[in-house]
């Protein structure tokens, strides 16, 4: 019965922080609509300050909504906060682990917050430490763990109540590439098991790896939504040609490109040229042909790279800005 309804349903959802001291009133979330279905892996993509974390806190029933409506697991977060939180797993941006306690004690304390019996916590902790590949660290103080291990422990901790939805706020920010891949692998495994994931990220590769569907948010509003593939098809061209020029002829080169057929698309209707601080992007169906056209203009870029379009390009198209600034 419950599975017929979306697990999360937001209508015209907004969050306004009242003015505080010298800071003016702030519309962190400004009227957004979305739904998350059971078993889905749903992403919020956007730059810092776009309203992703605020949205996550409202879903987590730890921040009251200012306007619109929000249902989580069929309940009202304003009135049934504890009931909702009992069925969520939350991985916040900062892990807030207790450094003075051991790995296992951290899991134990957290389980007690959910009023789980000690024996149940013991069993689950053993399984979760296995899942997080932290069995050997069980008795160690958390202080001694690496960044990647802390993150895995945070995820293990969030699963102690066997949640219906797992909320992850920037799960891999600050981790080295290897630690990120281990974490993605763990999250992918959860996804395979049918756990509903809601995650925020400003990494497009992460969104492409993990999300079935995502909304792109900017300044508290949704600017686009769909699967990663759909978004790329809709808002970017098939290929992107990245060019870097020598500093002294960058201005003349970019000017030439901007007024060339590449910028207006020519035969390629979606084609255009984007100027970034350090490079020029040429959106095109055929990168090699575009590069040939650049050479034909007698421009000599320092480097030229043809690649597939990514969500980064989608974001750039939609907002005219990079995700990571």
């Amino acid at each position, binding site marked *: 019965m419950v599975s017929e309804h979306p697990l999360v349903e937001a209508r015209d959802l907004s969050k306004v*922080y009242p003015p505080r001291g010298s800071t003016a009133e702030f519309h962190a979330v400004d009227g957004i609509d979305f739904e998350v279905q059971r078993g889905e892996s749903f992403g919020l993509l956007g730059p810092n300050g776009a309203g992703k974390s605020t949205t996550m806190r409202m879903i987590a029933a730890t*921040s009251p909504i200012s306007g619109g409506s929000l249902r989580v697991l069929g309940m009202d977060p304003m009135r049934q906060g504890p009931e909702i*939180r*009992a069925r969520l797993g939350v991985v916040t941006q900062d892990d807030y682990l207790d450094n003075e306690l051991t790995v296992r004690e951290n899991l*134990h*304390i957290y389980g007690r*917050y*959910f*009023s789980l019996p000690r024996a149940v916590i013991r069993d689950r902790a053993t399984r979760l430490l296995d899942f997080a590949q932290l069995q050997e660290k069980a008795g160690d103080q958390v202080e001694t763990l690496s960044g990647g291990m802390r993150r895995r422990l945070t995820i293990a901790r969030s699963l102690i109540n066997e949640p219906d939805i797992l909320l992850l706020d920037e799960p891999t920010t600050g981790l080295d590439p290897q630690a990120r891949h281990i974490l993605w692998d763990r999250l992918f495994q959860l996804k395979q098991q049918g756990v509903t994931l809601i995650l925020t990220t400003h990494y497009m590769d992460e969104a492409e790896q993990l999300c079935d569907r995502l909304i792109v948010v900017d300044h508290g509003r949704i600017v686009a939504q769909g699967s990663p593939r759909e978004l790329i098809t809709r808002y970017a061209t098939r290929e992107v040609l990245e060019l870097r020029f020598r500093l002294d002829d960058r201005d003349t080169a970019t000017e030439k490109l901007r007024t060339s057929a590449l910028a207006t698309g020519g035969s390629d209707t979606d084609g255009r040229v984007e100027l970034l601080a350090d490079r020029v992007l040429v959106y095109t169906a055929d990168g090699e042909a575009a590069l040939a056209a650049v050479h034909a203009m007698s421009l000599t870029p320092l480097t030229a790279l043809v690649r597939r379009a990514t969500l980064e390009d989608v974001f750039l198209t939609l907002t005219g800005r990079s995700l990571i600034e």
Partner: protein
Amino acid sequence: MLHAFGYWVTRYRRTWRGSIVINVLNPLLFLIGIGAGLGALVDDNAPAQIAGVSYAAFFAPGMLAAAAMQNAFLEGSAGVARAAGFGAYRSATPTPLNPEQLAAGHLLFITFRVLIASAAFIVVMAAFGLIGGWWALGALLGATLTGVAFAAPAAAWAVGVRKLRHIDTVFRFVIMPLYMFSGTFFAVSQLPEWIRPVSYLLPLWHGVELCRTLSLGTATITGSSVHIAYLLTLAVGGFLVARVTYRRRLHP
């Protein structure tokens, strides 16, 4: 609330031995130093000024109340601000526990800590023959109540404090002067007359008087009731405000 309390107990289990040693050593050194050293000087020169008992017997319950205040204030301010900024409250916020329960659980633990420290203090007093019998139990409850009367308002304020140095400032300019004007080291009757009414408004004065009269066996029902009512009002009022400020900080 009990689960939140349980967290603090789990942490305390790692450090309780050291903290009990401090709880006993501190009053021991104070009573030896002030009681035997300064006390000998006072007793020889101005015995009549302080209710006709030895300086040590006068000073010890005052220090008991003041120590309860200081421990409770520090745990209720710096301890709370840390927990709210990057500690236990943050990790417990996404769980079913409400901010109100986190406030209650932490205050319960602070009460427990003040109770243990005060009990250690009273044991040392008894060893010096400064207190005995059922009066000791009364003084224990009086000191604990004094602590809670400071911890609850401190927590209500500190949960919203983002800079720990603000707590330092309050400690230096509010808590420390209270020692001087609340009859801890000398009787308020020795202060200039015009300043005495101020003392009678200070919460620590009520704590000191409550503990001192109970420990010297001079407590009256009326006097003690007034002190208890005053301190209870602070404790309950502080907790009610804390319920609001905790929610404001933890569920923004």
